[in-house]
């Protein structure tokens, strides 16, 4: 029952064509302008803050990503956590349904390739497009920071920033896979875009801070003993954290926090930290390896989410009829 030939036949051709489409499209131009403007603004604000507060700081470069000027709470990380999904969804929401609507799908699939090639090619092209933009953005920010701060980054700082770049790409992968899934499920690109953006808003803004906490309070009701003391119940807090990690935005935020704040004591664990644990904790920054160990489950979570969403989309696509 093995099928003949490779499922990857034609992936390269599809990828190149889709990449060409992505890079020359108007929506890409808009995204490029947005990215450059936001990067400049975010870094500029961060640098003003950094200059005012820090005299001697071993992690000056990382501060560019995490500091914001007082009153304007836009850090570079926060800005990325919003812009990256918008970009990924913008590239993916009409990937498959546009082939149906242009009536090109049956003609393409009548060529000697499998459906796999079309889907893989579209996903890879989307991810490559985002990777190009993020690498450009990353270099822009670091270059800009070097120029304005005049302090060369240490090797560890550069490594942390680079891993953060990879994590950002993985974060984009989740949203791209989600957009691709809805572009397969919904024939109308407008519906697909609306549903994907809706889900993104829900997962990013409502789920972690409101819905997950409400659910946690139902699953593990707060202990009156703790409430009387004005303290949160550890169990409830833990459930809230577990549930909120279903949102890729939460995962991305946690990883960024751990990776980019090595000298922050609360970045030494992603679970609940008790005051007792903080008392007497050794001062100083965590080595890169330790930060990675802490953030590892979250990183795996991001990649796993991408794979799961892509697989669901793949299964739906394989079962779909080609006639429009």
């Amino acid at each position, binding site marked *: 029952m093995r099928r*003949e030939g490779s499922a990857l036949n034609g992936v390269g051709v599809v990828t190149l064509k889709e990449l060409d489409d992505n890079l020359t499209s108007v929506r890409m131009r808009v995204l490029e302008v947005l990215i450059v403007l936001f990067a400049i603004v975010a870094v500029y604000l961060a640098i003003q803050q950094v200059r005012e507060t820090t005299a001697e700081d071993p992690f000056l470069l990382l501060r560019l990503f995490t500091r914001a000027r007082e009153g304007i709470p836009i850090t570079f990380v926060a800005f990325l956590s919003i812009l990256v999904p918008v970009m990924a969804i913008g590239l993916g929401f009409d990937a498959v349904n546009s082939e149906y609507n*242009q009536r090109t799908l*049956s*003609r393409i699939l*009548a*060529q*000697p390739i499998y459906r796999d090639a079309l889907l893989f090619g579209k996903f890879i092209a989307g991810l490559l497009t985002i990777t190009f933009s993020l690498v450009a953005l990353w270099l822009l920010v670091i270059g800009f920071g070097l120029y304005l701060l005049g302090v060369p980054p240490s090797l560890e700082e550069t490594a942390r920033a680079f891993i953060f770049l990879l994590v950002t790409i993985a974060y984009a992968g989740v949203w791209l896979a989600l957009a691709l899934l809805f572009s397969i499920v919904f024939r109308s690109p407008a519906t697909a875009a609306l549903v994907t953006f809706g889900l993104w808003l829900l997962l990013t803004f409502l789920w972690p801070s409101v819905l997950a906490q409400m659910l946690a309070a139902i699953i593990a009701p707060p202990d009156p003993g703790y409430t009387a003391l004005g303290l949160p119940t550890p169990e409830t807090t833990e459930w809230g954290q577990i549930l909120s990690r279903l949102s890729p935005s939460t995962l991305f935020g946690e990883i960024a926090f751990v990776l980019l704040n090595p000298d922050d004591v609360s970045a030494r664990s992603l679970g609940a930290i008790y005051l007792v644990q903080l008392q007497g904790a050794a001062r100083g920054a965590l080595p890169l390896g330790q930060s990675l160990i802490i953030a590892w489950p979250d990183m795996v979570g991001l990649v796993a989410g991408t794979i799961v969403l892509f697989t669901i989309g793949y299964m739906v696509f394989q079962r779909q009829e*080609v*006639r429009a």
Partner: protein
Amino acid sequence: MNDIVIEAKNLTKRYRGIAVVKAISFSVARGEIFGLLGPNGAGKTTTILMMLGLTEISDGTVRVLDHNPVREPLAVKRRVGYLPDQVGFYDNLSASDNLRYIARLIGLDRAEREEKIASSLAHVGLADVADNRVGTFSRGMRQRLGLAEILMKDAEVAILDEPTSGLDPQVTVELLDIIRDLKHRGVSVLLSSHLLERVQSVCDRVALFNEGKIALLGTVPELGRQVLGGGFRVEVEAEGQGLAEHLARVPGVRKVESAGPSRWLLLAEQDVRPEAAAAVVAAGGRLLRLAVAEPSLEAIYRQYFHEHPHEGERHAA
């Protein structure tokens, strides 16, 4: 070399338990133009998709160029060209770029690619607009571009789904010429259509579809004899008084049908043209035209469903 390029046996397709193609069997010989004809929704497109391995087969088998499209879809799709119903192209790309993408998917190397794109576009008369965006193309130009793709692919079998629907008569004639030309190149053609008269002229054999079954199969004259009964059909156009009665009295004429003002259709046992001419002249009429009528698919189709009203009534509604 096998002379049968497509062979379907008891091919069946069910969507959610409802059969849309019901155990059809037919074969297409090499170098033949075979027509799948029938009303919309009769199962023609589904049959085509099963032959290309683009939809699953519920029952029965189909072999295309001696390959099983379910197990060896790539081998089939490498050698078969497909023009879908209302073919679509990437509107933002030029005609030649659209073909270039397909050429890469097929795996043609660069030199071969450019040469074949240019020659196939020239063949269908699109050489002048090769670099124009397909978004600016008319329906007819898109269909021709679709045929150019099949030419570029050097397909041994061309499967064309409704190639002439929605085209004006002039463009239809041009398109049918290209299809005939495919045959001259040794390409076997299977085409589907609901416009009977348009395709009657190009098809060697036809299969009339009705509600997922093949109602009739054969050459057009064969079907004519089968459905309309044997004998000759003679068209008479003449002016004069009471000609119908005189014609009816001609020996060998079974029936006279009025086919318009001063026109009659004689159903006869043999060629009664000389006798009919004599009868008109003897009755003092002026004979304007006399011809043996080829059975038209349209007439065959109508007659068939007249005789099998139960099967046809859903489409009459």
